């Protein structure tokens, strides 16, 4: 028997897609749980009003406002997940690196928040669009983000910045306060030409080359 073994990059990509999907669906489920509780409470208040018991109309109005707001947040979470899923459809596309990183950081916020890490990003540093397979860059960025955040401690701030070189993007992950970091597993950076250039106390520099 000569069964073909999946390679590390394929496994890395599947893990990446699984982590993004699991985190985003947790976020959506959380929004639905809040909407469920608030609408059940509204039902109970209406039932009380029908029985002639006193209910506070301002509280009901406030609850309805919160339901509407949480539906909006759930919708945003679904849109982020949908946009991510469609990024896998594109073989090669003109991509704005700032927008990609910002969208990816939004998807990553829940994971960072569970570790007590605050994310910081200033868009507008990466210049014009580049042509590449978007999901490969997303995966390389996520692998570095995940590696740094898993090593971080509660209360750390992680700043992510982009710098454009000729045919490459440099992505700097800076952790404050700094800690001694280990490099992420290079085999899991699926993007050809993506590599961790440097790693020091609290800083990881990723270079992603494109044509």
């Amino acid at each position, binding site marked *: 028997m000569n069964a073909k073994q999946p390679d590390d990059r394929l496994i890395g990509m599947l893990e990446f897609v699984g982590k993004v999907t699991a985190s985003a669906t*947790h976020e959506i*489920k*959380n929004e*639905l*749980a*809040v909407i*469920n*509780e*608030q609408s*059940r*409470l509204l039902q*109970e208040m209406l039932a*009380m009003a029908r029985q002639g018991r006193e209910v506070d109309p301002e509280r009901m109005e406030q609850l309805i406002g*919160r339901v509407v707001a*949480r539906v909006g947040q759930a919708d945003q979470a679904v849109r982020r997940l949908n946009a991510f899923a469609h990024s896998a459809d594109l073989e090669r596309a003109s991509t704005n690196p700032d927008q990609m990183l910002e969208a990816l950081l939004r998807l990553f916020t829940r994971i960072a*928040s*569970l*570790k*007590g890490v605050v994310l910081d990003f200033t868009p507008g540093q990466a210049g014009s669009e580049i042509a590449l397979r978007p999901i490969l860059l997303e995966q390389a960025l996520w692998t570095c983000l995940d590696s740094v955040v898993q090593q971080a401690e*509660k209360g750390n701030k992680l700043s992510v910045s982009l710098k454009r070189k000729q045919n490459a993007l440099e992505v700097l992950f800076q952790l404050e306060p700094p800690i001694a970091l280990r490099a992420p597993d290079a085999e899991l950076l699926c993007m050809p030409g993506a590599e961790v250039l440097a790693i020091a106390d609290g800083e990881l520099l990723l270079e992603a080359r494109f044509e």
Partner: protein
Amino acid sequence: MRVLLIDDEKELVATISERLDLRGIANDWVTSGEAGLELLRKEPYDWVVVDLKMPGLSGFESIKAIKEIRPQTRVILLTGHSAAEDLDHALELGADHYLVKPVDIDDLLSLMQKETA
């Protein structure tokens, strides 16, 4: 019966608390495992309902600490999903029950009332 609710999602935990109030159930709520343990050290509760995924002390860590502080307090773990290994681990740590969100508050209450009686 006194209930302590622990969940980092403030709107969720505050709304469950309000629904328990409407049913005349004495309860308090906090948004972290650390704050929950602080309350438990000061006063006893019959039940603690704790979320699994929280920043800081996780649901697992909270269950272990709750059982050390108040071994008689019964604990229900709330989870967003039903991964068998998570649920088994929670029971090993001393959780009495687990429920998957969204939770039907009347199911939650009937579970607590049945075992408190």
